[in-house]
């Protein structure tokens, strides 16, 4: 009996160990720090967000594909563990200690970076922010931020909506989690155009970027307004796809009875646009590895760069535009 139970205990312990190992390997999955880069390679530390969604995937893969050994770089990729800021700060600090040439940073949280950035400054390592900004936005602490502009992207959605509904209409906003800077900026850009026009807001609710929640939220919104909603502003693609399903289930036709506009421009959204279920997709362009590469080179040459570099983004307003873009869509 005792031998049996000891065996069972050992087996279970081994199992627990395997699980923990599995966890650890998840955390460092894709870690590309093989080391041994030649002296002539420029080492770049990339403090990244890691698995978050299609957009982030495209963005980080693009950065990794750009900073290759062929291009003269050794990229050290450090994704956050479960979007945890502490793991990012740890990775950042170890890059500073290691003395990499440049650090690229996509912060999961905007605040709390001052100390780390000051350390990098003391070590004379230039820091370039990728996509996400920091708060408070102290431009002395970093060299530049490269990102698409949320405000102008959401303004393009609002301008399209005004064109579509010259006689006004009711709209509802599906937001990301409250308090996130992306959400604030996308709201700011949208309302700055729409406020004071004949488009009237029925309200806004968070669906936490999720298709499932967006469907549940929007089915209730339709009921509470007796289906009198003409336009939905979904702040990301996934929530727009959820809204489509809620509209269909209410017996309405998406694109005809309710027009839905989304931001991001991932493949799923463009497919829905090609089918006419979405009406407008504003891209938030993730593919700016090339721009980042140019910036890194000029920073290392000692050139001055702008403190904010806006990545140009496209918009898609018809099924035809979506069908044309789809075959070459990278994300």
């Amino acid at each position, binding site marked *: 009996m005792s031998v049996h*139970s000891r065996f*069972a*205990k050992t087996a*279970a*312990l081994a*199992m*627990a160990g395997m*699980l*923990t190992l*599995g*966890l650890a390997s*998840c*955390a460092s*999955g894709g870690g590309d720090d093989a080391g041994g880069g030649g002296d002539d390679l420029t080492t770049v530390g990339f403090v990244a967000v*890691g*698995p*978050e*969604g*299609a957009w982030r*995937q495209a963005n980080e893969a693009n950065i990794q594909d750009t900073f290759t050994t062929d291009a003269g770089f050794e990229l050290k990729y450090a994704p956050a563990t*479960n*979007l945890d800021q502490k793991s990012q700060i740890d990775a950042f600090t170890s890059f500073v200690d290691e003395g990499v040439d440049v650090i690229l940073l996509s912060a999961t949280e905007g605040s709390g970076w001052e100390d780390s950035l000051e350390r990098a400054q003391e070590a004379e390592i230039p820091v370039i922010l990728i996509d996400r900004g920091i708060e408070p936005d102290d431009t002395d602490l970093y060299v530049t931020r490269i990102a698409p502009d949320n405000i102008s992207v959401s303004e393009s959605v609002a301008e399209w909506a005004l064109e579509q509904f010259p006689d006004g209409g009711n709209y509802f906003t599906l*937001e990301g*989690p*409250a*308090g996130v800077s992306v959400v604030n900026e996308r709201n700011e850009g949208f309302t700055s155009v729409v406020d004071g026009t004949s488009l009237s807001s*029925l*309200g*806004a*609710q*968070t669906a*936490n*970027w*999720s*298709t*499932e*929640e967006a*469907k*549940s*939220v929007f*089915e*209730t*919104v339709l*009921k*509470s307004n007796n289906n009198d909603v003409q336009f939905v502003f979904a702040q990301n693609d*996934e929530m727009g*796809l*959820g809204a489509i*399903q809620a509209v269909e*289930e209410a*017996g309405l036709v998406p694109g005809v009875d309710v027009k839905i506009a989304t931001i991001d421009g991932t493949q*799923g959204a463009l497919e829905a646009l090609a089918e006419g279920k979405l009406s407008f997709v504003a891209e938030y362009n993730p593919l700016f590895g090339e721009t980042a590469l140019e910036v890194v080179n000029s920073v290392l040459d000692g050139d001055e760069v702008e403190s904010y570099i806006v990545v140009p983004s496209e918009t898609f307003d018809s099924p035809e535009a979506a069908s044309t873009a789809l075959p070459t869509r990278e994300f």
Partner: protein
Amino acid sequence: MTETQSAPARTAARLLRTPYFWGIVAIALLLLVNVLRDPGYLAITVNPANGNLVGNLVDILRAAAPILMIAVGMCLVIATGGIDLSVGSIMVVSGAVAMEFLNAAAAPDSVLAALAAFLLAVAFGAILGAVNGILVSVVGLQPFISTLVILLAGRGLAKVITEGQNTAASNEPFRWIANGYLVGLPVVLLFAVLIVIAVGLLVRRSALGLMIEAIGMDPKAARLAGIKRRSLLMTVYIASGILAGIAGVFATASVMTVDVSRTGYQLELDAILAVVIGGTSLAGGKFNLGGTVVGALLIATLDKTVVFLGISSSATPAFKAIVIVVLCLLQSERVRQLFRQRRAPGTFVPSKETIPA
């Protein structure tokens, strides 16, 4: 004073002491608030095109289905004196497995593929539940720690399965599980009700429920009474895993997409809340399935009410918290005594501790 009470007053007093009475009151109040906002809120109409019932109440019941599943599993686990933090992560794993399978099967109309995906999802739930069970019963780890491991590992596993991508698939029969109707009622609701009834019958019509309570109350005494703690714990954690797997199917089938970072995210908290609202003590040793059902319905009602009233996103968590805190205060024996004391300062008699048989 108690002797002079009439029969209806006694019934009322007993009802007041039912742990989930205030849960029912809260649901009724929330519905009332919605009716004040829109008098037609409770109306359930029949869709003339297909004979399906449509209405806000139907939506609430549908939204409650996944919470019901995990809450019932959680209730049994809590009754043993444990806790299962991994249910949300098991949901995302089973959802990911189902979506990946359907994607690979590429059979949008195949009932067989849907059935296989469902069974696969449930099997993964059972396996992860079994890991929990082994960690708790054989290794003897704290349930909090063991299920926390699966909470973290599960989401990681889902990311590995889907390669970190949100995965969508198309399969009509699978979609039907969450969105279809049978004799005018949502399939997902019928499904959930059947499962809850089956679990209820299983634990209350057999000695299983008593044995679960026994190990939660006093593991030593239970062992002396000849109850096999280890196999019971395994059963309970596997059951919780299976139920979470089914909840994962409900959640992903609804939109036919698994969102690795959001599906089932923090739903373990909703499940624990539903159990607590239902009057089951976190200390274990006693459980109340009926109350858990009330708790799950309350959470769904609360979620839907927040949207229906158009409470702004930033105020939503605060609103939910207030409702729940008030509810817990009302349930607390001590707070109620405080009120009684105020009302009738002279007649207060401390209630006698009931001695468990």
